[in-house]
């Protein structure tokens, strides 16, 4: 294993964009390995990522964004990586900002959350999306005790113990945002928000669209309300993804 840091890029139907993202990261010359988790894409996403020089693991069929991330965490644990960065495959996250996340981890953070709202111009978003962001930012700030402005950000850095927590505990398979942040805080992880620049989508479909926004709100509220009393994950320790021979 050449590096101690793994950059996880979950990708679904991003064949036209994931290659550029991987090459942009490689051009920075950061000390990290790049893993693209192809979430069962039918469009050659895995081949594009491999051609761009990334490590690739592929789900046999689509499992959802959170599961792709979780597979990445488990890969990192199994391969002995010390830290994990994560960014989206659609080009929204500016590769140069990875340095900010690494710096925050170096400074002792367990979770470095890249926020598009801390400085500069956040990308445009629909009214429902903005209202939801405000609501969940408020909830996340209240429950974590840290000022959170961008709870839905998938642009993150994680320390070894944060990665181990996520790999071995229950991890939401569809929209892992506010609930995961609150879970981190409850487990005693040090959360830090880091200002990052984000672009608008270069195409493709947002996870947050149409009726899914309503489901997102419902799911997040149920998860958050049950968080204090819920068992960590179904059938824990009997079928771990991270640890098996």
């Amino acid at each position: 294993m050449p590096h101690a840091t793994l950059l996880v890029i979950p990708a679904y139907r991003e064949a036209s964009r994931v290659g550029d993202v991987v090459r942009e990261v490689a051009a920075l010359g950061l000390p990290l390995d790049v893993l693209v988790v192809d979430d069962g894409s039918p469009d050659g996403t895995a081949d594009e990522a491999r051609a761009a020089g990334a490590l690739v693991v592929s789900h046999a069929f689509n499992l959802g964004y959170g599961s792709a991330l979780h597979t990445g965490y488990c890969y990192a644990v199994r391969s002995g990586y010390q830290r994990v960065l994560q960014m989206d495959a659609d080009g929204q996250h500016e590769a140069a900002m990875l340095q900010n996340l690494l710096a925050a981890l170096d400074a002792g953070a367990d979770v470095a959350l890249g926020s598009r709202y801390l400085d500069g111009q956040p990308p445009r978003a629909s009214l429902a999306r903005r209202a939801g962001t405000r609501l969940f930012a408020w909830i996340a700030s209240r429950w974590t005790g840290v000022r959170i402005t961008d709870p839905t950000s998938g642009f993150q850095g994680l320390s070894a113990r944060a990665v181990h927590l996520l790999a071995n505990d229950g991890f939401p398979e569809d929209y892992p945002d506010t609930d995961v942040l609150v879970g981190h805080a409850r487990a005693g992880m040090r959360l830090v928000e880091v200002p990052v620049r984000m672009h608008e989508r270069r195409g493709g479909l947002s996870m947050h669209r149409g009726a899914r926004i309503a489901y997102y709100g419902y799911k997040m509220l149920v998860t958050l309300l049950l968080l204090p009393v819920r068992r960590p994950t179904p059938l824990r320790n009997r079928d771990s993804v991270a640890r098996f021979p």
Partner: protein
Amino acid sequence: MIGALAAFAASAASAPAPELQPLPGRQQAVAIGLAAAVLLLVIELVRRRKLREEYSWLWVSTALLLIVLAIDQDLLVWLSGWIGVASPVSTLFFGASVFLLALVLQFSVRLSRLTHRHRTLAQRLALLEDEVQRLRAGAGQAGAAPPRRTEPGRDEVA
């Protein structure tokens, strides 16, 4: 379902304890016949191994309960009085509804468990495929790419 429950609630509220009559013969025959048919069908499905025993017990319970209630009129009338329905036939509906609710809930629980398991299996498979490719490459053989799925994502997570 909802309608039956609402009717049940309404009849329970408006009933000034009327004299409960046993089922008319035709209703009794239809109820027994239907429940017996369901019971036979379920047993046949289990015999042909098209239905697992673990999923059959709620069906068998429902059918047996309906048969017992339809045959034993005293029990049915007593139970109707206890629940507070106006007509004993409502008790049959109510009993069947409760069992069907339990059945559907059982399916939802099993589905959630299966979802978790098939997700875990797919994740392990992805990691193992990667390791197999590395091992093959390390052994000096050309690592064959895993078979690619070609149809679009029908089973996308909501």
